[in-house]
């Protein structure tokens, strides 16, 4: 051990004293990037994200081709005869939604990016790292922004890669029944890029929740509750009695429904919000969480 090395190594300060300027955003961004790339959980989580989205998208796409195979043989899944013409109609419907079908795995992918978004900030508290982080860089707004920017960028890049991969794999499968689509078709590129944007926004929503709660399990549970459980409830709750507003008027505000507008093909008519309006609503939810997190991060004792 370096008991004796102490003196020589320290004497005469190895660093030039006080360079100009001050510790700021850029250095903190580099630091946060080092943090996120230097723990294994990041890679496992991102790998799980890609595999879940691509795998589930592929499975769902394959399911559609099987459905068409049945219909082409003149029978549905239960073996009942179907009138001629149904197969063609279904094929056209699948073709119109081909991009969204291949992105079906985002339903699960959102949960995984929620985990990573929460961990980005809650792991600082669960490990005690936050004390080291804020002692090195006490300007909390800078730390919070740098962390958010780095995580947001990682989430966006991974989200886009995931979305495009899922799209291409899904289309390759759908093409066996000639119902695939291409990026050149109207709305398709927007749908696929939208998948990446949606995942990034989910992650940032969870980042904000994590900063408010400072607790990994609590933040993940809350994120999943908002994105997944609310959506499931929205599928089951009966609409209000017909009258002054319909169920869709509530449903469209559910976070998942608003956010997924950007990667759902409009032709299926499931989303009362147009793609960008829906995404704007969802981004506003994420912004509320991120700003809430900032307020807590700035004000509460670390």
């Amino acid at each position, binding site marked *: *051990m*370096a*008991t004796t*090395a*102490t*003196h020589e*190594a*320290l*004497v005469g*300060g*190895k*660093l030039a*004293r*006080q*360079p100009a*300027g*001050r*510790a700021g955003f850029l*250095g*903190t961004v*580099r*630091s*946060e990037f*080092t*943090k996120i790339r*230097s*723990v*294994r*959980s990041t890679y496992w989580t991102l790998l799980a994200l890609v595999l879940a989205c691509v795998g589930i998208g592929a499975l769902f796409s394959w399911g559609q081709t099987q459905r068409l195979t049945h219909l082409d043989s003149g029978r549905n899944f239960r073996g009942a005869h179907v009138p001629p013409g149904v197969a063609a109609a279904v094929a056209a419907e699948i073709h119109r939604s081909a991009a969204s079908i291949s992105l079906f795995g985002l339903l699960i992918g959102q949960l995984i990016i929620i985990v990573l978004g929460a961990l980005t900030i809650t*792991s*600082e508290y669960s*490990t*005690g*790292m*936050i*004390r*080291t*982080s*804020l*002692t*090195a*860089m*006490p*300007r*909390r707004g800078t730390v919070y922004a740098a962390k958010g920017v780095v995580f947001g960028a990682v989430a966006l890049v991974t989200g886009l890669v995931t979305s495009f991969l899922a799209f291409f794999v899904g289309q390759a499968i759908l093409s066996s029944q000639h119902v695939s689509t291409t990026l050149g078709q109207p709305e398709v590129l927007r749908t696929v890029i939208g998948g990446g944007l949606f995942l990034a926004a989910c992650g940032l929503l969870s980042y904000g929740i994590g900063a408010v709660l400072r607790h990994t399990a609590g933040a993940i549970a809350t994120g999943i509750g908002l994105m997944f459980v609310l959506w499931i409830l929205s599928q089951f709750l009966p609409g209000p009695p017909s009258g002054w507003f319909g169920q869709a008027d509530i449903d469209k505000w559910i976070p998942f429904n608003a956010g997924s507008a950007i990667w759902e093909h409009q032709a299926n008519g499931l989303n009362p919000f147009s793609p960008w309006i829906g995404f704007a609503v969802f981004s506003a939810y994420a912004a509320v969480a991120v700003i809430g997190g900032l307020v807590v991060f700035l*004000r509460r*004792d*670390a």
Partner: protein
Amino acid sequence: MIEARGLTKRYGDTLAVDNLSFTVAPGRITGFLGPNGAGKTTTMRLILGLDRPTSGTVTVDGKPFGQLAWPMREVGALLDAKAVHGGRSAYNHLLCVAQTNNLPNRRIGEVLELVGLSEVARKRSKGFSLGMGQRLGIAAALLGDPKILMFDEPVNGLDPEGILWIRNLMKALASEGRTVFVSSHLMSEMENTADHLIVIGRGKLISDCTTSEFIAANSQQSVRVRTPQREELVALASAAGATVRDDAGGALVLLGLTAAQVGDLAFENGIRLHELAAAHASLEQAFMELTASSVEFHAGLPAGAGRESAHAGEVA
């Protein structure tokens, strides 16, 4: 230079730090002493801006810590050995800390060498022992070559080798003109290292003076003696003005006489001594007495618990 003025921190109903004012001067080791729960850690967190004071101010070189241009070049702090992400290697931990203050990467190798962790630099820190974790924390604190170093209970849980290493490190840092501010609940530890003592209890300032002043003001002469002729020695010592009490193992503790005086007394009266030792434990005792009224959780302590912890302190 750290300056606290009327520093107060309240958590709910608990007043953790109560109107504390002190100055930590540069170029020496200042011991920050108090029983567990006295508010030492809270005070350090207030200095670093981790907690916001309820009232009062604390500055580092005249500025709140958060406003320093390059915080790591001014202050290096070790609050606890667990302030790291266990999944990150020692090197990457130091890298992400260094980057916040634009410190050069070569500095990481230097501090790893300095604390003796070079060989495990690429290992994840979750496998580190407490001593290694402590060294990693100290490496992070030293990264910026800071003028001020703060250590919170740095020897807690360390083995004797680790304790010696930390002591020498603190002395070396102070000898280079740095300010070293180190907290402890063990008087015996501070006696060996600190030049100046700030003593607190229940968040309040009890004493702020040099270590030698503190010792002079608070330590009593105490001599431990073992003799087959107990009654005779007790009578003689009492006559000479000493207070006598029994110690463990049939020994006697004499207060008010020096070891030389006790030895002479025995020799002149033909009393055989089997053991004669001047004891410093009284300083620990003085500290216990000084802070006894301010120990946070003293209700229900069995009689003599104070002495036990004083002994535990000596062992640690």
